[in-house]
């Protein structure tokens, strides 16, 4: 068994941001987590990466409870469990290659990285990864000079540079236009298929979850209320997840260009 989540809970004051989340993943898959804002999706991913401490519960990966890790062991886990953010979280004033090389920080000595001294082989690898994502020609530019879609691909390159077992993506396309959203989601799907890495992505649109994921988990008010294949995610199930009434229309929230064809003008 690869990943098992048992009763993971996060409490902020009186509120349960994540309430006894439980599920297991047997083999690498592309998993989408959906739910409205405040449902606990981001908190869950942040707990998995250990950016946020869980209140209680067990989260086992290959038999090891990663919620108990501390210090260097915790940082080693973070290096195995890459994270992609809605706002990219790159260092804006640094160039793209340096930002990608940051993916190796955990494996290199502090002094060397402080002075931006990375091995030649790492630099070649970083450029190869950028090439794979189609943005190699942006390598010498400052990260802040890139468009949103390009910055998100730099963030994915940084994640790949970590050579992680899991890639977590927290609303990776929420601040991108539909074209760039598709490029980024295609990249994530390709990484899953070609490298066999597990990808867990928080998504805010149903059609993205349906189109790209092998499995969809729905969260509502901190609880997991849906767990199944994209086919099982009917409009009725979606209404439950979002707590919406019959007026709920998927096309209205879609960011896919194709979906527009279904909307009466």
């Amino acid at each position, binding site marked *: 068994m690869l990943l098992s989540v048992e009763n993971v809970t996060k409490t902020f004051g009186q509120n349960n941001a994540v309430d006894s989340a439980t599920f297991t993943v047997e083999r690498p898959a592309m998993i989408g987590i959906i739910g409205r804002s405040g449902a606990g999706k981001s908190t869950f991913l942040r707990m998995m990466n250990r950016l946020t401490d869980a209140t209680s519960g067990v989260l086992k990966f290959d038999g090891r409870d990663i919620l108990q890790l501390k210090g260097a062991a915790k940082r080693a886990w973070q290096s195995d469990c890459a994270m992609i953010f809605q706002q990219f*979280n790159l260092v804006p004033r640094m160039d793209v290659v340096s930002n990608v090389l940051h993916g190796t920080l955990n494996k290199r000595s502090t002094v060397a990285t402080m002075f931006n001294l990375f091995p030649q082989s790492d630099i070649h690898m970083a450029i190869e990864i950028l090439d794979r994502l189609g943005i190699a020609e942006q390598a010498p530019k400052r990260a802040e000079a890139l468009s949103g879609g390009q910055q998100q691909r730099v963030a994915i390159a940084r994640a790949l540079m970590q050579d992680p077992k899991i890639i977590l993506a927290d609303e990776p396309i929420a601040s991108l236009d539909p074209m760039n959203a598709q490029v980024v989601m295609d990249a994530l799907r390709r990484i899953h298929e070609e490298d066999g890495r597990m990808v867990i992505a928080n998504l805010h649109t149903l059609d993205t979850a349906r189109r790209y994921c092998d499995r969809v988990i729905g969260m509502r008010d901190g609880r997991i209320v849906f767990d199944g294949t994209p086919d099982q995610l009917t409009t009725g199930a979606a209404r439950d997840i979002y707590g919406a009434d019959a007026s709920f229309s998927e096309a209205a929230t879609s960011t896919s260009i194709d979906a527009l064809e279904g909307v009466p003008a």
Partner: protein
Amino acid sequence: MAQLRQRQLYSGVTLLVFVLVMVSGFNLAADRNGGSFWGGLKNFFDYPSEVVGEAAEKAAELPAHFKTFFPALVETINIAGVSTLIGALLAIMLSLLSTRGLARWPRMIFFFRRVMDIMRAIPEIVIALILIFVLGGGPVPAMIAIAFHTTGALGKLFSEVNENADLKPVDGLSSVGANWTQRMMLGVVPQVAPNWLSYALLRFEINIRASAILGFVGAGGLGYELKNAISWGQGKFDEAGAIFLLLFLTIVVVDQVSSHFRNKLTHGSAGGH
């Protein structure tokens, strides 16, 4: 109407009390004074006119004096430079440790802030006097004294800069498993370095003045030479004039150069973000 009159009365009484305190305080100070204040006032310009007169008389010797005192000027600037550098490095560490959201040990923020308060509160000259007793005269006590004060002063300013740093890059670096030093050096420093440098340059200007003054208490450099030359009755006022000019010109030059660079640092990069 009655209210207005009452308020006017209060203002009048306050003014009266203020004037009385001023007058009585002044008289008390004049009584305690060694000489006579009013008597001394008439001679106020005697000393400066003698200094300027004597210096003007021997104006031809000024270039030679510039040459003589140049090494002392270099010593003064050196003290300022080294102490600014050491002070700034310590200030960087203390400021990062005492900024909310960045601190390595969040519970220690209060402690590190108080440490900086204390370092800032003690004037350089007090530390220098003590160190000169302990270590003897020379540039090293002055350097330590100024660096100590600089650490406290810059640490406070730096931590205010740090508070405005964007935490998203720091979060991003945490997520790859970077340790605290890496997060600070690679996530925070690129954002705040221009502002840090700007404050450090300003501090360098201040430290040149401080290092000149510390010469008076025996810490070497231009201040020490000035103290020797400026005493009355030695006929060395031409030297004093040369030292004054040297110090004045240096401060003007450093001031202009650093304000040019500070402008570039704070405004030149503002468009980038």
